[in-house]
């Protein structure tokens, strides 16, 4: 219990939180496709458990519902926290769009 005399006094206290350093300069998004028909869509597993199996099911959905879409299922090299410049270069070279997943 705080003594009543203290409750009525005013206190100046310091802010405990760190300072934001962020200046966010977002990149504009890549242009969208007119259609996915005839296009190559990469589905990239980022490495969380169950993600690859989920994307396999997504590939199955495309083949059943949008057979004109070519899908390429790939695992990202390394764990979910690591970059994979080789795969990004391949996607840019051979793909038209990419779906990353599944974070969790």
């Amino acid at each position, binding site marked *: 219990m*705080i003594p009543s005399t*203290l*409750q*009525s*006094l*005013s*206190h*100046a*206290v*310091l*802010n*405990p*939180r*760190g*300072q*934001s*350093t*962020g*200046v*966010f*300069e*977002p*990149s*504009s*998004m890549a*242009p*969208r*496709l*007119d*259609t*996915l028909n005839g296009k190559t*869509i990469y589905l990239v597993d980022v*490495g*969380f*458990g*169950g*993600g690859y*199996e*989920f994307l396999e*099911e*997504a590939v*199955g*959905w*495309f083949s059943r*519902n*949008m057979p004109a879409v070519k899908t390429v299922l790939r*695992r990202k*090299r*390394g*764990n*979910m*926290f690591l970059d994979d410049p080789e795969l990004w270069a391949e996607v840019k070279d051979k793909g038209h*769009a990419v*779906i*990353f*997943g*599944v*974070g*969790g």
Partner: protein
Amino acid sequence: MATARFSDYIARDARNHGMLLRFSFPPYPVVGMTRATLRKYVEGNDPTTGKPLMQELVDALTKPLTAQEKNPVRVQKPERPRLLKTDSEENLHRLFLENGWTDGLPIVLPTEERVAEMLTGTSHAPDEVVGLMTVTHLQEKLQYTVEKVAVNAVMAGARPEHFPVILAIASTQEPSLPSSTTSFGRMILVNGPIRDEIGMNYGAGALSPFNYANAVIGRAWTLMSVNLADARLGETFMGSTGHNLNYNNMCCAENEEKSVWQPFHVEKGFKRDESVVSLFRGWSVINSMGAANCIRPATEETAIMLKAFPALRSAATLIMDPLVAKGLKEQGHQTKQDVTRWLSQNVKIPAGQYWGADVIYAFMSPLARQGVEPYATWAKLPKDELITPYNDPTQMNIVVVGGETNPLWLTTDFLYTQSASIDKWRPKGGIRRDERPLRMPAGTGCSDGTCGFPA
């Protein structure tokens, strides 16, 4: 795509990276679900929008960009004011608690006078930048100064004599509350002369709440992680169960005087007379419960316990009473490395057990696929073939802590992360102690230290 449980987190994380992306969210969890369930997810709706998930993905790739997506706005967050609005003590306590700036326990309000006093615990200028911290892997980092660390040290109930240790922890830029859903536990180990200068406990009950310095230093790391690394439940901190170790981070010191082996900081390249703080990260702690060498040697008992962990990156840390260390030395283990080498060679589990763990799938399977040994070979083995998962003994650590009431120890899956000098944060005139230092009662033990068997 991310599971719906992370819809807010993901959107904020991407925004903070300056990455505008179109997200879709299947239900959660994805991990551990049957094929039938995953197919239902794929053919069902995004629970955050109520729209069919796959059509949403198709739309995300084909619907024209909005004006904002084409020309996103630059955002700069405002600077936080140094002082909060003046108020009564009761209201300020409420403000700190309701804003999530505490660990739920009462704090000491960081008034200007108290913070100024804390700053006498170092010679470093209040406005010196100590570092940047975040609880998430790639989230925006917050910057903090010596004064910000002092504010959190005051809140934790620390005194100026503790401040060099707290600053050393802050200098690692490592949060105690990683964002992970897996709920990490942490450990702080202090070595060197400062242990006695500030009255740390490395003897009996060192990991229990019977020592002022151990308590407030450990707590300060958590408060710094909340306020300087921006840990916010459900926003940046996603631990599913959470971890009770987060309150104090197993803060203790090593019992260098009673250890028969080299102190931990000396193993890491520091001089014996340097004061150093070392940090560890893991999840699990198994108490030996019974005494070493009653029926079987401590090494064999430890090997059984280590089999319960996934052995991620071969990491393990043993926290053992000096009596255990003495016993192991008597059995022929002349150094800590003799023990870790023995464990590395003798802990064996079936390959199927190893590869069946989620964290091994996430972090070691990629290495196996890349052909990195021994993981590539282990991945090809039959499930019942035995492997030695702690294949790198340099990732296994031993620290000696305890009061020789019995030869007992803790086996953990903790990974050593880094050490930092405490001495560089000391005030020029030496540790700033109170005229009458605050100390809890010390445990009573063998008065002249000769009760146990000789080293």
